[in-house]
């Protein structure tokens, strides 16, 4: 059994960590947090130069032609560094949708731009409150144009193009949903930035008014493609969450070792030790579930839907748990703007919602397990 990343993949992780430690220190994250820039453009450029943006994009489309396992290790480091760039929307959502359903021409048009850092992409799915569901999609497609409003759209205000889920029929059936590709700079789309809990990752409202759109994948296949995209993104985002969990745990551990109260390091009190031990437990469970998700993603296994949901749930829980208790270990200092704890807390709780909430994925997991047991 070799249920681990290869030495080459681990080297890539080390390279990503080294790069991000240097180029994405907390100070850089704070530039975006404080609203001085919508995202870190220099970092984005650097990620492209390192080949990280196109790591899972085939060489014929300008990528590095490595695989999803390589993308997983980079994702972990992105989460660990709390990187303030549109990586997840561009790479896990837009690029994955193109790879799954794009025509050769569509791939040729956008994938090289993603790999080179020239284009930011996103997925426009939600229309207000609620979780992924065909009936929640009202945005109308007709005659090659789209009309309607999407919100929140991750990185919608800085994206160059979007994969848009739109209604092409009038029932609640999956087959009434189709996907479209929209050049957001070509007119007909108005982007309005929305404030959100984690300013280091932007959200926007996109209003489509007779916006030109080309079909992505076959008509009526939208929901099926979307489900696959969400599963793939769930695994990748889970690695970001695991990276964030580990970092939050480390911050808590380090502070517990340094901080003296009542004449001793606070890490010598069992109440603090046990809190940190429990953080380690949830981070470890999440990592192991993620490895299974990575295996399923990289081999396109039939287990992917179940593995993705498990990774998503476990990693969401771990990041929320670790980032929350990291603040608790820090005490009052953890609640200051100056300390970095809140940046992970913010990221954990927005990442938890990005692809649909925890309860949505819990539902998905149980449905998928039942389906498997019935089969």
């Amino acid at each position: 059994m070799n249920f681990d990343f290869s030495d080459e993949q681990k080297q890539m992780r080390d390279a990503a960590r080294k790069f991000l430690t240097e180029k994405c220190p907390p100070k850089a994250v704070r530039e975006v947090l404080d609203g001085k820039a919508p995202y870190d453009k220099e970092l984005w450029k650097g990620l492209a130069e390192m080949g990280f943006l196109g790591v899972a994009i085939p060489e014929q489309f300008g990528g590095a032609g490595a695989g999803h396992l390589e993308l997983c290790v980079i994702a972990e480091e992105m989460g660990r560094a709390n990187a303030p760039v549109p990586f997840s929307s561009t790479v896990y959502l837009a690029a994955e949708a193109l790879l799954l359903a794009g025509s050769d021409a569509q791939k040729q048009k956008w994938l090289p731009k993603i790999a080179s850092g020239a284009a930011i992409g996103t997925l426009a799915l939600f229309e207000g409150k609620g979780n992924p569901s065909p009936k929640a999609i009202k945005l109308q497609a007709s005659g090659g144009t789209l009309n309607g409003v999407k919100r929140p759209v991750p990185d919608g205000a800085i994206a160059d193009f979007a994969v848009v889920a739109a209604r092409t029929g009038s029932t609640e059936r999956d087959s009434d949903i189709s996907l479209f590709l929209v050049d957001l700079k070509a007119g007909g789309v108005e982007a309005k930035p929305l404030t959100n809990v984690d300013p280091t990752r932007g959200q926007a409202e996109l209003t489509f008014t007779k916006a030109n759109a080309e079909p992505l994948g076959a008509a009526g296949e939208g929901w099926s493609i979307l489900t696959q995209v969400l599963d793939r993104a769930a695994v990748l985002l889970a690695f970001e969450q695991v990276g964030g969990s580990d970092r939050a745990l480390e911050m808590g551990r380090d502070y517990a070792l340094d901080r003296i109260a009542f004449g001793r390091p606070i890490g010598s009190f069992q109440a603090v030790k046990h809190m940190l031990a429990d953080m380690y437990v949830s981070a470890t469970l999440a990592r192991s579930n993620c490895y299974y998700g990575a295996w399923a993603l990289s081999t396109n296994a039939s287990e992917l839907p179940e593995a993705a949901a498990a990774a998503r749930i476990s990693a969401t829980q771990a990041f929320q748990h670790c980032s929350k208790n990291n603040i608790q270990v820090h005490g009052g200092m953890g609640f200051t703007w100056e300390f970095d704890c809140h940046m992970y807390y913010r990221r954990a709780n927005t990442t938890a919602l990005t692809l649909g909430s925890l309860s949505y994925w819990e539902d998905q997991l149980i449905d998928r397990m039942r389906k498997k047991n019935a089969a």
Partner: protein
Amino acid sequence: MNFDDTPQEAEFRSLARKWIDANAPKHYEAELSKSSLGRIRLEKEDIVDVGKAWQKKKAEGGWACLHWPKEYGGRGASPIEKVIWQQEEGVYGKLTQPFQIGEGMCGPTVMAFGSEAHKRYYLPKLASGEHIWCQLFSEPAGGSDVAGLRTRAEKQGDNWIVNGQKIWTSGAHYSDYGLLITRTDPNVPKHKGLTMFFLDMKSKGVEVRPIKQANGMQEFNEVYFTDVVIPDSQRLGAVGDGWNVSLTTLMNERMSIGSRLATGFPEMLEFCSNLMTDDGLAIDDPATRSKLANWAVKASGLKYTSYRAISSLSKGERPGPENSIGKLVSGSMLQDIATHAMDLQGAAGALTGADEETARGQFQQMLLSSPSMRIAGGTDEILRNIIAERVLGLPGDIRVDKDVPFNKIPTKGR
């Protein structure tokens, strides 16, 4: 990343599979598959007798304690081969329950500290199931604080005279030998005055009494020692070095990778998939679904954590500390699952009869037995300390009794 055997592992697996297929006591398969929690019972026969027969057969075929050196009754197998064997042995592994303490803890301690003659005599008999060993560590005054033990051993010529009491000794009533830690010097701090021995459980002055547990069962014992004579030749390690010797024993306890801990999740998923409530199937209830999903990812998280450890073994590496989370996660999970399974049945959830149409009382049994899972082999709190100190590198507890002679440590809280 894959789940495949290396060619050598595959060859070993096929060898093991063939042997098991030809030799396993298949008529117990169904019965063994059913029981998942706590001590295994067979309907018509004593598990110890059936287990001894299986263990003997394994020893004859070269499959007993297979990671031990050949001269001591093993096969000289690698750690990954041992895991593969366990996977292939499957439910028949449950038959080896009476030997697990011997194989996992007593044997390795004798191997590390016994004389060559002892090793050559005792270990092969332990491996073949001829002798069963138990471990005599815990005491009424020393559970988590094992080093607080009070059983005295006093030197008399070439012998030691032992007086005191041990508790929570599994299998003492059918064991032939015991690994015994005693206090030989109460005038020095507690960790320094301990000495390890092994003894014949049939020795004069050894009395084994079963403990009636909170769940109504009797699986453990108290063992009383009254002027029991142990020859000095049965001492393991130096006088006063018993604590270090015991660490070897306990380290081996925690190295048991690949032995799958019961979580209760598969049983719970099946139960909820079939239980009809007034509002439909239990599995369609949103609150239950959420809980099930939480348990599902814990169960899968543990499974893949052990796969990661197995992968390290496969590469010839020492597994990381990840596996230390197993019992901490599964113990409280069993308790939570039992509570919720009963909750779903309303007032009838309290009924325990095996004739109950839903789940035959298994969750009620789980409820009553699960507290022990959070205590035995390291309480949840001790396990959290271990993770915090050994994995995360946090400071050890401040020990107020550290430099105090043992006989000056207070024995009452108030």
